[in-house]
């Protein structure tokens, strides 16, 4: 399994946190309230062991927003929240604008969550691409709900997973989620190579 040195780990965490900062700023503007996002932990896992690394969530009922990315770095990025919590996120965020109050997760709310996911995933990807100088294109977000095995399909089996724990804070509430990047081993090697290049480019 891929292991980063402490310096590589800290650098990647820092880059992603910068990206999440800009995602939080965008969400704050949208919901007209302060939203903060922190990434307390990142780790690598094999696809088979993904369940063991999502210990903050009930992996049998997840809400996900998935985007592909390609270019110099390719793979898929997936934002995961607990199925029930995801509705809470949308309600918390939309409450300021529309005051929705029913029990159904409608198309409207799925689309709303897709947009939140899109902002968070794009922010992470852009931070990595811009800082580490990758040329990356991302696709549109797709919303899905269900078991982890349904969300991470057999097509993904050959891939390695970079897992970020994401804490979303709004109105003194914290909602825990994960961003996982599915990449093949070549992409992971390339990512590490770019991290090293970036570290070396920083003047002592």
């Amino acid at each position, binding site marked *: 399994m891929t292991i980063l040195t402490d310096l590589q780990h800290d650098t990647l965490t820092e880059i992603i946190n910068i990206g999440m900062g800009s995602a939080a700023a*965008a969400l704050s*503007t*949208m*919901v007209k309230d302060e939203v903060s996002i922190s990434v307390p932990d990142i780790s690598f896992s094999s696809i088979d062991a993904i369940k063991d690394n999502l210990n903050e969530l009930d992996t049998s009922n997840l809400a996900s927003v998935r*985007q592909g990315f390609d*270019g110099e770095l390719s793979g898929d990025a997936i934002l995961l929240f607990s199925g029930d919590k995801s509705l809470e996120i*949308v309600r918390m965020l*939309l409450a300021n*604008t*529309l005051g*929705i*109050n*029913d029990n*159904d997760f*409608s*198309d*409207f*709310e799925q*689309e*709303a969550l*897709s*947009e939140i996911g*899109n*902002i968070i995933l*794009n922010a992470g*990807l*852009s931070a990595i*691409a*811009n800082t580490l100088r990758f*040329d*990356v*294109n*991302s*696709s*549109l*977000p797709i919303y899905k709900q269900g078991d982890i095995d349904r969300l991470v399909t057999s097509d993904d089996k050959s891939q390695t997973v970079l897992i970020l724990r994401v804490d979303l804070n709004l109105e003194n509430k914290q909602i825990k989620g994960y961003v996982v990047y599915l990449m093949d081993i070549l992409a992971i090697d390339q990512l590490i190579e770019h991290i090293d290049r970036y570290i070396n480019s920083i003047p002592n």
Partner: protein
Amino acid sequence: MHEALLKQIVLSTDIGMIVVTADSSVVLWNQWIEKTSRLSADKAIGHQLSQLFPHLTGSRLEQAIDDAINNGTSALLSSAWNLYSLPLFKTESEDADLLQSLMIKPITFNDESYCLIEIFDVTNSHNREALLREKSKESEQALDAAETASRAKTEYVSTVSHELRTPLTSINGSLGLILGGVVGEIPEKARGLIEVASSNTTRLLSIINDLLDIEKIEAGKMEFIFSQVDLNVLCSHVVEQNQNYAQAHNVCFEFMPTKQPMLVSADTHRISQVLSNLLSNAAKFSFSNHAVTVKLNKIENDYCRVAVTNHGSGIPENYRDNLFDKFIQVKGSQSSSKGTGLGLNICRAIMNQHHGHIGFDSVLNDTTSFYFDLKLADGYH
């Protein structure tokens, strides 16, 4: 595909399509967007979006276009947060009234970066959803009101039943004592009337007890005291107790025990209540001068079945699916004594608490068996 045809498709498609260059100048403005923006392609092409719509400066749409061109990211601007990203018109209204979802995608062509903006009209689905939401809220409120009314009704019935039971018990007891000769010989003319009064107060008490039982069941307050019971002993006792009732209906109860004890874990009082109920139904709905049998036998999966069988008109087809529901009474039967229609519902609730099963088999104008099954205690399988 021919380039001109492709262009025609893009221009005439039923979604809005705008393509802008890296400096946000419009290079494609299709017919859908012409119509909904009330701005012709001639006037739009060559201008920056922020010149056409000044309010877009600093907006999320402008940021998303910038990210698509400079970072290669695609974005979704849902109708949840961005009701009117672009000022578009669905009707003749003076105000923008077309709700929209936007998809922003980066495009590279001949080393030049472009951004494609696709615009979807979600006005109708948005309105439908709002209507559904409203209807759903109304249904919830109606349900709440109905539940509140139902609770109030149950409480009322319960209170009235409690208030009625005490004086009725006293009347019933007094009538029993008079009939028993405590106050001396009763004139023959008076005896008949007192017997009618006594049997009707007994019936009234049984109805009130049923109503109170249902209320307890629904409130989850019916208490059960489980102990190990031999069903042979319990059934024999209950059959004996109800023989007078059988005689009153011109039938007799015949008990067919098993050779071995049938030990189950049960609440004696409640299982006796179930069997009494089945016996009284069997007697009421039996042809005259027939036997009603009570038979015990071991069935599959280590259960014991108690079956009460009579000969009568049977259960009509249209009653069979909901016979155990509340207030269901078979009409047009030969029985003249009506109950509350709660007895079988209470029996089913009692059996549920025993993790048992209650059911029936019925052949019209022949035999009808009502039975209940209880799990045998360990060691008696």
